[in-house]
């Protein structure tokens, strides 16, 4: 079965090809079967492969499917590499992916571009699998760019609205900044270490580079650039909230569960490099900390249900980066997994709410719908509990590990820990703010609520609820992967620390309750305070990052473009064009059609080259 690992990306790819080649002429039923079924088959094979892999007790497994080409030492191939890390990723991608596909068959039922939607989704799954299963940099890069492309296509899925197109372009351009850094990083690794194979490369790096050597730092920094872009971390986080313009299942699959965590995967996969560059690793931790706090503040002030979830995603990935920075590789991946469960659950539930309320996104226009939408309600309760890391939910276990790891970091450990706890406190506030405002209180005069949709949408929610609750009990088989980083001693931690960590989210929920449920405190009164309201505005705008970028990047660029209208660079190209044109016209004149002239040119050519030969 393991030998059939190539089937995993092949199924969705075939699904994509089927859907594209038929060009939307298939009936919806068949599109649904192909679209969801291909990922389902992929999941099934993933489970079988995982079972066999775990039973075999091997540390890793390589399947060479084919060598694309063999040019000297350069032999890129379609080789798949399976170890604990890619196993976890592969199960998340296919499993959660399948549930989201299933959900989408109901969610997108009314959309005219049904077939196109599933085509893109299938392509995405194939590319994402390629990214996590590839054993060389080329496949990794292919998958990386493939998911970026699909993300772009799907954010702008409803392309009739120019805003969506704008959001898609923004996502593309911002992540491209990171991608460029990563491409340079990969090239650096290839040229320095002389191999495309990731494992060989890491081994070579360990042998050739000393800890803290400039090359290792440069490579790790460049890779971090790519990871930061893809995973929407500071300072490249601005694209993700806007990416919510896409259909909600997209937000669940791409912008919560899988693609945005590719950065975490990348860092975890190349953790050897980061261990060789401790300063960069520390930078990772602080990037994560800053991001999780920033996004936590912002999430508290948002009104759009999907934007709240988007900021919470940014914040949770911040936790993962914090874990990576702290060297707790397994904890990061563990949190990646639990986050995939509960965030997918939250997004899908949000999708149900949005669909039932006729595409209403503003939470303050919802209110009191827990009776009408019980499944969505319970999804939100469980999802938010896991998100806030209440005890015994999946999020609790993973976040606990991260915070403990952060505390164990030498030097700024306490700082990181305090930041993480504050973040947990905010998580409690914003996640239950959402629940209280949307599901309790009075109905805010919204229209009648549509029935919750059929089983295709309910079943994935149920399953994800179970996973969000119990996912913390899953043992991720990562010890073999991160053996090199296993130096962390589990230091005994005082009860106080545990108490603070458990209390922080409850405290947040309490605050949230007082503000939004019992209305003991009034938000409006708070807003009357000028300091609070300006803070609110500041946080609401995502710490003014967009405005800042507008001012320091976009405006100068536009300004340059404006003063440069007739312009230097363009005229350079125009010059090139006119040079080639002139060259063409001049050379074309030599083609006179006269035989004598042609013979003369041959003789002249002969004399020319013989003169060269005799003189040299």
């Amino acid at each position, binding site marked *: 079965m393991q030998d059939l690992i190539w089937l995993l990306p092949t199924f969705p790819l075939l699904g994509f090809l089927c859907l594209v080649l038929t060009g939307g002429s298939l009936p919806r039923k068949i599109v649904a079967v192909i679209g969801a079924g291909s990922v389902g088959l992929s999941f099934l094979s993933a489970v079988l492969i995982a079972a066999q892999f775990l039973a075999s007790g091997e540390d890793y497994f390589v399947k060479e499917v084919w060598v694309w080409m063999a040019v000297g030492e350069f032999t890129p191939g379609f080789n798949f590499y399976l170890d604990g890390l890619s196993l976890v990723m592969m199960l998340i991608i296919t499993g959660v992916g399948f549930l989201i596909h299933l959900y989408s068959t109901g969610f997108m039922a009314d959309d005219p571009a049904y077939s196109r939607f599933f085509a893109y989704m299938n392509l995405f799954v194939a590319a994402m699998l390629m990214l996590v299963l590839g054993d060389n940099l080329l496949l990794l890069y292919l998958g990386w760019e493939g998911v970026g492309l699909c993300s772009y296509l799907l954010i702008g899925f409803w392309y009739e609205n120019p805003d969506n197109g704008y959001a898609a372009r923004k996502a593309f351009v911002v992540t491209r900044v990171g991608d460029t850094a990563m491409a340079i990083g990969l090239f650096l690794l290839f040229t320095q270490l002389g191999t495309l194979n990731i494992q060989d490369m890491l081994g070579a790096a360990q042998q050739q580079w000393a800890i803290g050597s400039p090359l290792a730092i440069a490579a790790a920094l460049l890779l971090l650039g790519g990871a930061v872009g893809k995973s929407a971390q500071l300072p490249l986080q601005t694209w993700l909230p806007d990416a919510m313009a896409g259909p909600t299942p997209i937000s669940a699959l791409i912008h919560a569960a899988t693609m945005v965590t590719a950065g975490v995967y990348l860092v975890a996969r190349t953790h050897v490099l980061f261990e060789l560059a401790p300063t960069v690793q520390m930078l990772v931790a602080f990037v994560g900390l800053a991001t999780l706090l920033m996004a936590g503040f912002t999430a508290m002030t948002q009104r759009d249900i999907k934007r709240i979830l988007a900021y919470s995603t940014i914040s949770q990935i911040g936790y993962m980066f914090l874990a990576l920075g702290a060297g707790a590789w397994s904890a990061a991946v563990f949190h990646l997994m639990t986050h995939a469960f509960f965030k997918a659950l939250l997004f899908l539930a949000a999708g149900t709410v949005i669909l039932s309320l006729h595409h209403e996104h503003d939470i303050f226009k919802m209110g009191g719908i827990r009776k009408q939408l019980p499944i969505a309600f319970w999804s939100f309760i469980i999802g938010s509990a896991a998100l806030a890391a209440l005890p015994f939910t999946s999020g609790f276990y993973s976040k606990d590990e991260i915070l403990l790891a952060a505390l164990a970091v030498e030097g700024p450990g306490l700082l990181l820990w305090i930041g993480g706890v504050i973040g947990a406190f905010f998580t409690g506030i914003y996640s239950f703010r959402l629940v209280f405002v949307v599901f309790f209180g009075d109905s805010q005069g919204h229209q009648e609520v549509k029935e919750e949709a059929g089983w295709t949408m309910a079943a994935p929610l149920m399953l994800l609820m179970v996973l969000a609750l119990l996912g913390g009990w899953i043992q991720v088989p990562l010890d073999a992967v991160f053996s090199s980083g296993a130096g962390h001693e589990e230091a005994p931690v005082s009860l106080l620390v545990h108490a603070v960590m458990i209390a922080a989210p409850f405290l947040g929920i309490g605050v949230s309750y007082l503000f939004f449920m019992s209305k003991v405190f009034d938000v409006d009164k708070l807003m009357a305070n000028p300091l609070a309201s300006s803070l609110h505005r500041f946080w609401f705008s995502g710490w003014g990052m967009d405005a800042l970028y507008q001012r320091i990047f976009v405006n100068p660029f536009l300004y340059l473009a404006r003063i440069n209208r007739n312009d230097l660079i363009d005229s350079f190209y125009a010059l090139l064009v006119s040079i080639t044109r002139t060259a063409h016209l001049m050379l074309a004149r030599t083609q006179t059609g006269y035989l004598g002239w042609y013979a*003369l040119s041959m*003789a*002249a050519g*002969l*004399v020319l080259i*013989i*003169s060269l030969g*005799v003189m040299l």
Partner: protein
Amino acid sequence: MMILFYIAGTVAVVSTVGVIVQSNIVHALIYLILSLLAVAVVFFSLGAPFVAVLEAIIYAGAIMVLFLFVIMMLNMGQHTIDQEKTWMAAKDWALPAGLAAILLAQLLYVLRDFQVDIVPNEVGVLEVSALLFGPYVLAVELASILLLAGLVSAYHLAKK
């Protein structure tokens, strides 16, 4: 032999010049035949009597007769001489002659220290045929294919 070589060589060069400057095509053809015969003598002086004979029979004989036929067919007698003269302006000669002169000069330059004397031992029909029917037998067969190609092409092109 040496004297024969130089005399024949001079004749060949002079008559070849005649070929390329003549405006009367029939005269030019006669010059060409003369040149080929002179080359045949050169061959003989170099100790290659067999190819000398072939040069005379096939080149100067058969092939040139082919030319003569065509010249007759196209009716290019005396009256085309004037036309030929108008086609040969002095300025048209400068560049080609210059290029050829450079080429020749380069050849002379690289031959300057190539000093090997040929002692013209006769390598006659026996040696040539031993080669032709020995290692080069395939070449003979291929030459027949080559002639077949020429034959078919010429037949198709010249018919009607």
